[in-house]
């Protein structure tokens, strides 16, 4: 068995770039799911559920924006690029396998999306703050961007929770 590190820190440009790339894929997964959910709403439901429609549309737009912000940071780190078209195709192909069954399932899935993204950025910010490594991008800027994205995710959790409570 191989030794592992038990430090919860980000210690290099390469590791930071990799984590940001994982964020990009995570956003793509969330974006695709929100878009697909939006598409799957029947026409008649769309009229009835304007708030849900707006929520999913906003979620897809927000994820696309987050993805761009993360990609900008990755580019500045001069890390190898990921085959993004492949990721997009993969997410698209796999979506059906884990598609929620009904309308409440769509909302619950969206809640999981937002909570997961929040947890990812929160852990990442902690790990960067715990490290004293020098990155080739400004550490404060990375933390500022990630904090802004994390706060968006927190708002997303609140928004979905509000709609779920209103439906009860």
């Amino acid at each position, binding site marked *: *068995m191989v030794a592992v590190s*038990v430090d919860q820190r980000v210690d290099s440009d390469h590791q930071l770039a990799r984590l940001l790339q994982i964020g990009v*894929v995570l956003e793509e997964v969330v974006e695709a799911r929100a878009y697909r959910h939006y598409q799957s709403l029947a026409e008649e439901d769309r009229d009835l559920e304007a708030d849900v429609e707006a929520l999913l549309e906003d979620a897809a737009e927000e994820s696309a924006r987050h993805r761009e912000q993360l990609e900008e940071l990755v580019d500045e780190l001069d890390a190898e690029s990921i085959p993004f078209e492949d*990721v997009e195709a993969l997410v698209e192909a796999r979506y059906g396998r884990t598609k929620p069954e009904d309308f409440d399932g769509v909302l619950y899935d969206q809640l999981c999306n937002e909570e997961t993204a929040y*947890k990812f950025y929160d*852990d990442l910010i902690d790990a960067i703050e715990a490290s004293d490594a020098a990155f080739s991008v400004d550490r404060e800027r990375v933390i500022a961007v990630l904090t802004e994205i994390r706060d968006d995710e927190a708002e997303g959790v609140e928004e979905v929770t509000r709609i779920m409570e209103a439906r009860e």
Partner: protein
Amino acid sequence: MNTANQYLKAIYLVQRTDDGPAATGRVADSLDVSPASANEMIGKLEERGLAEHEKYKGVSLTDEGIARAESALQTYCIIERFLANVLSVEEFREEARQLESVIDETVADRLDTIIDRAEECPDCFDAEADACCYLAGTCEQGSD
């Protein structure tokens, strides 16, 4: 994955490889920490009902500890497979070890939606190869 979960995973794998209680020294070696640190964490796991330590023999996980360890190992498998198959990372073992402390189980579950993982995960994890045997190509004949 938090530190406790990394210890549970390490104890689980040592127990499986050695087919018995895991010696503290072996656990410490596999995590690259001092025996004193390993001892301290094993004591904490015992207090939380996740492990039992028997003098001169070593540490064994309780049923709850095993369940937590299997979940942690699954998370590790997801990270390895995600790096290897989605991001085409050649050094996926090394990178997974670096990333596992930062990637939470809930995040791994989302990444899991776009990878292929065998039903028997994490039983197919090969501790010597430090990867799922399907990924490492070390599965015994007849098991795939």
